[in-house]
């Protein structure tokens, strides 16, 4: 694959170039700042972008922002972000960009596991989504939270709905009235922060949240 690599530490950048070339990839351009990264991608049209989160000039999340900007312009551009931070907020921003297809968020320390790292790179290049296990753990913990706010009864309702049952059959299974079921469902939506004007099917969203948890 033809790669544009953005990493401001020269030591690490050179190391990564050597590593990637050893596995038959070609680093067509190296960038030391977010602006250089964007310019290099425009010029070289690489197969995949590998970037650090923290970059000059501001040394905050410029690398990540540049990656998201590139994805907005060119949604099918695979991007692998190497980060020092186990940070849900960063990973979510990346996953939100262009459906989260062909993105990866990996901790830098995974580079040491050379074969795993190169494998992840190839998967992202092929359009898969790769998220570091540490970050996944945080994502899941966060998602699990709203579900634990539900009462046992509400969890039961949601579980039955996840099985594909209608309100009437949920009511029958729980031997309550249909009105009670829809009251429970309203309260579930509230607790899962699913607003009434959502265009997406709220029932599906609720069930999805249940399955994710």
């Amino acid at each position, binding site marked *: 694959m033809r790669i544009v690599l953005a990493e401001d530490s020269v*030591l690490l950048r050179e190391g990564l170039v050597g590593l990637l070339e050893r596995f038959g990839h070609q680093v067509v351009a190296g960038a030391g700042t977010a602006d250089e990264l964007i310019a290099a991608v425009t010029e070289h049209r690489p197969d995949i972008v590998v970037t650090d989160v923290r970059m000059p000039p501001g040394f905050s999340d410029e690398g990540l922002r540049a990656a998201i900007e590139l994805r907005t312009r060119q949604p099918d551009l695979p991007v692998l972000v190497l980060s020092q931070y186990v940070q849900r907020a960063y990973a979510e921003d990346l996953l939100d960009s262009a459906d989260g297809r062909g993105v990866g968020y990996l901790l830098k320390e995974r580079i040491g596991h050379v074969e795993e790292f190169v494998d992840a790179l190839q998967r992202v290049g092929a359009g898969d989504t790769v998220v570091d296990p540490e970050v996944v753990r945080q994502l899941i913990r966060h998602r699990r939270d709203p579900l634990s706010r539900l009462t046992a009864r509400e969890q039961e309702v949601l579980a039955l709905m996840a099985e594909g049952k209608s309100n009437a059959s949920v009511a029958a299974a729980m031997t309550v009235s249909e009105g009670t079921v829809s009251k429970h469902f309203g309260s579930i939506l509230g607790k899962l922060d699913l607003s009434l004007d959502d265009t997406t099917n709220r029932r599906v969203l609720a069930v999805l949240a249940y399955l994710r948890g």
Partner: protein
Amino acid sequence: MPSSPGLPQALRQRGYVLGAWPWRAALYLLTSVPLGIATLTVLVLLTVAGGALSVVLIGIPLLLTLVLAGIPLAALERRRLRLLDPRSPGRVARLPAHREPDGTGLSSWLRTRLQERSTWRELGYAVLFALVLWPLEALAVGSALTVCGGLIAAPAVLAASGGEEVRVLKIWLAHSYPPAFAALLAGVVLLPVFAYPLGLLAAGRAMLTRQLLSPPETGLASRIQELGRSRTRLVDAFEAERRRIERDLHDGAQQRLVALSMTLGLARLESPEPPLAGLLARAHEEAGVALVEIRELIRGIHPQVLTDRGLRAAVEDVADRSVVPVDVDLDVPERLLEAVETGVYFAVCEALANVAKHSGAGRARVTGRAGRGRLVVEVSDDGVGGAVTSGGTGLEGVADRLSVLGGHLLLSSPVGGPTVFRLEVPAPPAGKPPTNRRT
């Protein structure tokens, strides 16, 4: 400076009678009257009702209110001083007249107030004001206005009576317009004559108010201010140092460890012989452990997400990591000053660490609102309670840090729970310097 526009300075200047100052002085004295009447009414009502009802205990809260009645009046009086001294708005008001209460809740607030000297001084002022000051002021400003007003109004009154007669100041009778207009002229000439005594009276009255209502330690105020500034500088320097250490670790040690781990990983690919392979694997593993440790160390020194995304994202991140499930409901619409964000962030971290370590809680909650220049954040849990801020706990450090920002930490943690940490800090949006940190 003689040119500064306070009333006492203005009195010494030539243009005094032509300017707004005499009118401001009159307004100051005049507004005393309704305020004084209201104060007298409230004091009398509270005394009578409280005294009469105290036999049946209902009167006790009324008497308590009576004791505290000076507080709002004093606050109002300090503001009213600005009429005469606009050059330093709230110079007196800015020094807090009352201490922050020691804890949350009405009872600790009451206890603090009743133990303070200022509360009693303000009550004394209220009594003095209600019984002595306002009648004197009413008399002075009333007679001045009546005399001048009576003279000036003479032609108008004459016209109203159909040109027949007017009794000027109830003393002389005028039957035609020339003497009436002479009275008007006399009234206009008298106006500046009254302007000086009124001005002096108002200035004296303001000085008395200032003497009675400013905090007793005004002499120390400037030293305290300087101490506050140097404390702020120390904390800022400390914060800058943290950031420097964080950056050095991130750009130096962390990157080198990643490079080392990468090299070790590559070396292992060369399929080395058994003893070397084992050693390489161990070294690789050690490098990995060191990387995890340094990552957590850096995050503890200063989390990058706080700088990039602000308080809410950083607190949500801490909540994610907490062993006890934490609900976060922070409404902080804009970025705040870095010092405020950092101070509040570490306060919340400490509070949540306490929840995890000591409370035995099953659930915690962080709520916060920013508005009207203040940020209020509460960390509550459903644990066993009994937390304390003193005795060298981390909370003491948090309280110190917040006090540098002009804020404070309140803790309510009765045995049996629940525990509520409440912190309040002045929080102007980033860009505007807060008044108490001006250097």
